[in-house]
């Protein structure tokens, strides 16, 4: 049943979500796009974009959106979709909440133990790789255009990518960058 699957999958995503919102992208993409097919590659990146421009943690936003689409795609009414959205968001925070309450005292006491320190150090290294992989899996013909089918879009996309990459490293506000990219897209592709 779809609601049970949503519960289990987002429980799993929540439990293994180390390293903040961007690290979560690779995890959610792998489960929601590649394994379950609840969102297409394009829908996924659109939700990430919307998350950047609306309040709220990325994990909650993507869970909410994916929960809604998974249920409505399965043929249920929009009201049931809302239920799926709320369920997905609760599932994603459930295990971290329990751990935070149960383990935080323990972790505080053992924060100087070499094992805890080493594990956290290795996790930080892995998280850097996971964020890089999130960017890499999203570089696809659906998001950038392709040499055969949409060469013009590919050129525009690469230019936008390079400009935004450089500007973001210089700490320009991401919402400004998304706004300008959207405007560029509108001016170029509307014709």
């Amino acid at each position: 049943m779809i609601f049970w699957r949503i519960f289990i999958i987002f429980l799993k995503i929540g439990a293994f979500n180390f390293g903040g919102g961007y690290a979560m992208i690779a995890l959610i993409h792998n489960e929601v796009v590649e394994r379950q097919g609840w969102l297409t590659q394009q829908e996924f990146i659109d939700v990430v974009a919307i998350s950047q421009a609306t309040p709220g943690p990325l994990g909650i936003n993507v869970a909410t959106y994916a929960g809604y689409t998974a249920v409505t795609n399965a043929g249920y009414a929009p009201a049931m979709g809302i239920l799926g959205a709320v369920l997905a968001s609760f599932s994603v925070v459930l295990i971290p909440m329990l751990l935070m309450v149960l383990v935080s005292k323990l972790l505080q006491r053992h924060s100087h133990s070499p094992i805890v320190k080493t594990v956290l150090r290795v996790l930080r290294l892995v998280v850097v790789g996971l964020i890089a992989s999130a960017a890499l899996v999203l570089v696809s013909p659906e998001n950038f255009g392709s040499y055969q089918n949409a060469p013009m879009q590919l050129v525009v996309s690469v230019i936008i990518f390079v400009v935004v990459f450089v500007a973001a490293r210089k700490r320009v506000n991401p919402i400004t960058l998304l706004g300008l990219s959207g405007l560029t897209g509108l001016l170029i592709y509307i014709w």
Partner: protein
Amino acid sequence: MTTYGQLYGSFLKIGMFTLGGGYAMIPLMEREVVDKRQWLSQQEFMDAMAIAQSMPGIFAVNMATHVGFKQRGALGAVCAVLGNIAVPIGIIVILAMFFRSFADNRVVESIFKGIRPAVVALIAAPVFNMARTAGVKWQNAWIPIAAALLVWLWGVSPIAIIALAVIGGIIFARIKTINNK
């Protein structure tokens, strides 16, 4: 005494203004939780941040859990978290209901065609700074590189990689302590 309503209300406010990722709301949360409500001291706030970052889960939600639990136990934690995620859930549900009917609209599609490569760039941009903070050096650079390639090229689940990192970290720490003895 702190009421459930105060916990809900304070974190509702924090959740409403968390734009662009969890870390953007740290100053806002600090003002609300430390200065205004005095639920945590400055030092407790810093300690809570360190723990919230090293645990799985969403940073803002972890902080809400910690503060809520400290004030009013389990139900307090639930109230704080519900407040924190109420507005975001509402906004995304409304967007999800209408976005699909707009997605085929020419204007919307044009805008998102421009935005998609920008999103990828925004994700890629902090990788190098993060690499420095995480302590990536020539000797250990293979760890993040291997993780990225496994997920990207072979579709390995990030869950497997995180589990492996935890196990690897424990084994590595054990070997080090044995060697030091």
